[in-house]
């Protein structure tokens, strides 16, 4: 019997497995630290095994949400961070049920991140590329001024250094606490991508669980190639808003990666295990073509 099964059956004997009691137990000591339960198939595994499997359930293939540094570790051989010191401000002096300034402090302490995106130069083998990875654990990956600025600077770096660009998105949308400052980041990043486009540089957008709102309606969907990671939910409007507007239930697979593939909105759905290889090969193919075809100025974009 696999260790996970053994553990599961042992716990089963102790208490009934209604979801609440599971949650209760998951938060306590040893189990939390050493074991992980799949949200999809409820199978339990030693955390180490799942980590070694890139945080993918080895029983059902469910992709656990991963943080930005874990992602960077998975898809690069080396990485040099840029603009690491950028931190959010509170331009509107915004307070909802708690002051935004307080939320920033708490989130920074909880996540050990300064913002919802990490940007820098990544390398696979000897191929360099500009890389941004959003982190959903920082205020739902919301896009405010810092995210917009770091993404824009990264695009400018890609332009200067003639690099391909890869952005991993994971975001609930624009950060409401920064109001129109957040909204306008959609234009700032989109306009920078216009320059990248004209320069004939490759941009691969990888949409991961979940990507919505302002990110979907700006850099998230402006990739020359758009990849959806297996299991990601991707859309512009949230499911609840749509249901309230049209007053009907949505299909279960609505806004899933494969749903988007079916409707022609993404190029491919890729399993996490294949992502690094896919990205590397795509960059190689496009670089080869650019070398063969010559400078982009000879072809109108």
């Amino acid at each position, binding site marked *: 019997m696999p260790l996970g099964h053994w553990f599961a059956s042992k716990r089963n004997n102790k208490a009934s497995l209604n979801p609440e009691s599971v949650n209760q137990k998951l938060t306590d000591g040893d189990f939390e630290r050493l074991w992980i339960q799949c949200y999809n198939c409820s199978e339990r595994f030693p955390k180490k095994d799942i980590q070694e499997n890139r945080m993918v359930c080895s029983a059902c293939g469910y992709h656990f949400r991963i943080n930005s540094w874990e992602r960077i570790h998975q898809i690069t051989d080396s990485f040099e961070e840029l603009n*690491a010191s950028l931190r959010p401000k509170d331009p509107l002096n915004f307070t909802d049920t708690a002051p935004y300034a307080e939320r920033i402090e708490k989130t920074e302490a909880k996540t050990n991140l300064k913002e919802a995106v990490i940007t820098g130069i990544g390398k696979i083998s000897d191929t360099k590329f500009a890389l941004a990875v959003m982190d959903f654990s920082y205020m739902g990956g919301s896009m405010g001024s810092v995210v917009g600025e770091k993404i824009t600077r990264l695009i400018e770096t890609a332009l200067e250094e003639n690099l391909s660009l890869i952005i991993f998105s994971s975001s609930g949308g624009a950060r409401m606490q920064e109001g129109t400052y957040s909204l306008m980041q959609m234009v700032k990043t989109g306009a920078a991508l216009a320059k990248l486009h004209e320069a004939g540089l490759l941009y691969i957008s990888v949409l991961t669980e979940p990507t919505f709102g302002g990110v979907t309606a700006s850099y998230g969907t402006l990739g020359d190639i758009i990849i959806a990671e297996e299991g990601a939910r991707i859309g*512009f409007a949230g499911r609840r808003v749509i249901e309230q507007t049209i007053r009907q239930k949505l299909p279960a697979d609505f806004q899933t990666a494969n749903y988007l593939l079916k409707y022609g909105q993404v190029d491919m759905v890729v399993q996490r295990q294949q992502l690094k290889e896919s990205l590397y090969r795509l960059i190689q193919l496009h670089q080869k073509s650019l070398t063969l075809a010559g400078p982009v100025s000879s072809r109108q974009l």
Partner: protein
Amino acid sequence: MTQPLFEPFDFEKPIYTIQEKIEELMRISEETGVDFQSEIDKLSARAEAFRMNVYKNLQPKEKVQIARHPQRPSAIEVIRQLSPQTWFELHGDRAGQDDQAVVGGIIEFLDRPVMVVGTQKGRGMKENLVHNFGMPNPEGYRKAMRLFSHANKFGMPIVTLIDTPGAYPGIAAEQHGIGIAIAHNIREMARLRVPIVSIVLGEGCSGGALGIGVANEIYMLEHALYTVISPEGCASILWRSPEYAAQAAESLKITAQDLFAFEMIEGIIPEPLGGAHYDPQMTIESVRSSLLSSLTTLTQLSPEELVEQRYQKFRKIGAFEESVLTR
């Protein structure tokens, strides 16, 4: 005058109450021959002072009501008044749809052809349904982009008129790539080599507004709003109840005055006291004079300068801290 022109908003009701009192005194005076002139004058002065006070100190939630007033001048009314002789409406995305939430076509302004594209809400249920309450589907943004490209090809300046509660949240909208359609418009508008001026007539909501909003200069009507999310939507998420919409409207800083202070827009177009719906024609004349000066300046710029100016306008927007020591 007695009857208000429109069903008054709650915050306007005291104005009408005082006016009713004045009229009652005048009636009694006429019937009885007693002279109430000094009382009437006093009340009138009070009424006027009160009116000024209400309209000069409109709260964001009141501006939201005014910005959504059904009698507010619409894109089509602005178009017709700006160019009474020439209006070639153009239709369709050339891929199967003509989304009427977006209207557009060629007018003549400043003695030259100009491409105008706007979101249109429609007035009354029948029109609302035709125009989908001004909420474009992806096809609407693609129609807009087709007209922008046309303008670019023939060197026509572009004017966009924004009044939308946002892009439409629907099943087909998601299937057909509403996010991609908006994103694509943002990127491609950034590349257009003609002048672009955007005017927010009423509501400029979220990405739905940006899909036609990447301009060299942006103007807002005095009581228009520009926001990342509707106050109701924001309240539902952050306060977990739409009842906090007034607070959200306040916190989000969505008024023309806010955006001007943030240097995100170039100017505010004055409205008649009480709002554009009290005198749409006069409001549109104010739109005309703003457009005149804006386009006169922008048409002096070269295509390269236009693209660069537009880029820098948005490039500088953002509020963040950065320590210079660590890069």
